[in-house]
């Protein structure tokens, strides 16, 4: 695959947050790794870089597809996130609660995707909640409050289709209200 489709939902978050699991839980086909070309329009046309992303889709009854992309977990690709998200529908941010500093991860990803979130919307799923008691859901609520952002945040199991569908439902509510 070269460029990216426009009807896309982006799944992002740190390494091991459950991005691949979450995409797999709601998509029509198992996610595959695909190289996505990011072409900087402002820059020279040949300035193209490829990033390996998770990819799958959900086919709608009119034949169109909503594409699901998962960003690579490492932050070293953050310079391309603006391009990867361009024209996307919205963002699903997953944070693994057993990360040593989950709230810093939350800040990092919300800041990194701030423009995209402003243009569209975000929903936050906190995964691996039972594994390490780093933060509770109200710690996430409080952090978002400090940031002045009322974003949907849920405790989920990234492997559960029902849980991921709830995330998508909240995202749709945010995007369509």
């Amino acid at each position, binding site marked *: 695959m070269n460029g990216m489709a426009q009807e896309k939902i982006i799944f992002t978050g740190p390494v091991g947050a459950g991005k691949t699991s979450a995409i797999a839980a709601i998509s029509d086909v198992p996610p595959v790794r695909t190289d996505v070309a990011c072409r900087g329009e402002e820059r020279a046309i040949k300035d193209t870089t490829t990033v390996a992303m998770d990819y799958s889709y959900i086919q709608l*009854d009119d034949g169109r597809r909503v594409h699901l992309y998962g960003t690579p977990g490492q932050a070293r690709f953050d310079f391309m996130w603006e391009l990867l998200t361009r024209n996307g529908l919205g963002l699903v941010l997953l944070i693994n609660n057993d990360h040593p500093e989950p709230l810093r991860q939350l800040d990092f990803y919300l800041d990194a995707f701030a423009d995209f979130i402003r243009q569209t919307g975000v929903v936050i799923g906190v995964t691996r909640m039972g594994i390490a008691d780093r933060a509770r859901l109200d710690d996430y609520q409080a952090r978002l409050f400090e940031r002045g952002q009322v974003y949907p945040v849920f405790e989920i199991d990234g492997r559960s289709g029902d849980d991921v569908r*709830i995330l998508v439902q909240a995202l749709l509510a945010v995007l369509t209200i």
Partner: protein
Amino acid sequence: MSNEAELRISPVGLDATGHKVLQVVLALLGDEDGIRCALLDADDASGHLVIVDMDSQQGRSVFPGLSSGQVKLLLGGPPASGRNIVSLAKPVHVNALRDMLLKICRRMQVQLDASLHDLKAPAAAPMPATDDTAPAAAPDLLTILSNARREGSVLALAIDGDELVLVNGATRAFAALREGAEERLFAVGPEQLACRQIDEADFESRTHGRTLGALDNLLWQCAVHAEPDRLPAGIGDETPVRLKAWPNFTRQGFRNDYFRIAAALARQPASCAQLVETTGLDRRSVVGFITACNAVGLLVALPPEGADPEKVTPLHKAATPERRGLLARLAQRLGLAQA
């Protein structure tokens, strides 16, 4: 009616231009960011936040005497650092000062506004639904639980002498003593409900080995179950309310109508009447949501102009009609209620 503490700001040593810029910024903060601050007189350095022009004689002489608890925003002068000190280079532009004040105010409001602690610890008073025309009536379950949460009291709740649920308002926990105890409490009227104070040790010993639930969960379910047709005291149909945080729906059952109301309120403050209109949902859902959020301390009632759509910057842009169509199909495809 706002139950937020007001942030007091002292301007020290600012020249005429500095004052103008500050006034413009404070007006923007009030109108667009919903943050209201009181600007103190130029010789009153007692504010929560002190804005000091370090290029002025007055600024340089007042600065060393400020208390360590006050937040100091230094304009110009040599770079400075330390606890509660931030600086901004000159010339000071409206946008830069606004961004800076926005950050500071939000941080400070977290410390200041007692009701904010509501997100983490027992504090301010969410207003329980009360019927002021019938003061003699026995308090309903929602009022009892809200009071326990506010006052940190420890209670046993019973029907017909049968104790069903223990509540600890201080630790914001509860335990059901029987299977289905919560539902039984929700189902009876205030006359049948008995509640007595118990001590913490009693709560500890009687809940030992039992699963403790979050009191806010119980309150939320109680508020939703009550399906009230009137808003909590202090909130009228036209009173704008602001949502402090997206409610924790994790174990509340998931309701698309509530998601839509939460999404609308997350976008901008609105009154019950406005929410009914923007969401197209029936008033009962909106009242239920407002009651539940109020019970768990997630709502702030604002002064009347707080919901003026012209004055509020929405968090997100609205989706185009084409996208809406696509998203509706996606909802359908995933078996979700129509968004």
